[in-house]
């Protein structure tokens, strides 16, 4: 019987109670499959840390006046084109 993903995640995040945690550690000592799953979760956490950093970096405030200005430029050109047809 192997550990489910959520159980391994709980083990990693230390939200598992002490008794279950010890049992899980014993299981991990001899189970290659669960160890591989645990490594995958570690990789996931690195990936998600990068995602969080990216979200923060690319979170730039909107600028309605800049947007309106661009709308104006592109609309003006559309009118010019339509009137020239």
């Amino acid at each position, binding site marked *: 019987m192997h550990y489910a993903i959520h159980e391994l995640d709980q083990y990693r995040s230390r939200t598992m109670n002490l008794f279950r945690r010890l049992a899980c550690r014993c299981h991990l000592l001899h189970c290659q499959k669960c160890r591989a799953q645990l490594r995958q979760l570690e990789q996931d956490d690195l990936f998600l840390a990068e995602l969080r950093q990216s979200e923060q970096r690319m979170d730039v405030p909107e600028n309605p006046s*800049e947007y309106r200005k661009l709308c104006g430029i*592109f609309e003006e050109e559309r009118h010019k084109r339509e009137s020239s047809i």
Partner: protein
Amino acid sequence: MAYTTKKSLLEAIRNGDEVSWYEFYETYRPLIVVRGRDYKLNSAEIDELIQSVMLRFFNRSRSFVYDRSQGRFRDYLGVMIYHCALNIIRSRRKNEIGCGDGELEMPAEDDSRWHREWEQHILTQALKQLQLQIEETTFQAFELYAVKGEAPEKVARFLKTSVNMVYVAKSRATSRLRKIVKQLQDEE
């Protein structure tokens, strides 16, 4: 056309599809702003940078078709932003007493910084695509727990689901997100 589950904007650009100015603005504006900050532009100059990049791409027309002979879009966009920023800095320097018209001095690691920012941009785009591809509750659980760092118990209560489901959502969504990132990288 909205680039949703079927096609990303990047894929459309690479395929030479017609791209609308609004779609382009929505997608690349944060990246241009970040780049402007790298070049130490002030906020008015960053507005100017966005406008001049947009105008260079679209030449005042509402859509554009990318010429693939220009090479990889990432490199093309990076060079385009650099030139627009350079023009802004040059015109600022002209107005400053005692400043010559020099090249924009960039640190040696600028290229690697741009590639890192591009990858960060890809990740944020992938997250947007993920939202369109998975069930709403799964996405919310993933976003609250894995991205925003809320406690899984709190997320489970908020979404009226089990804590296990929150962990499973994180694992499934992460795996799907990796695939989307890979797809976006391959589309370049």
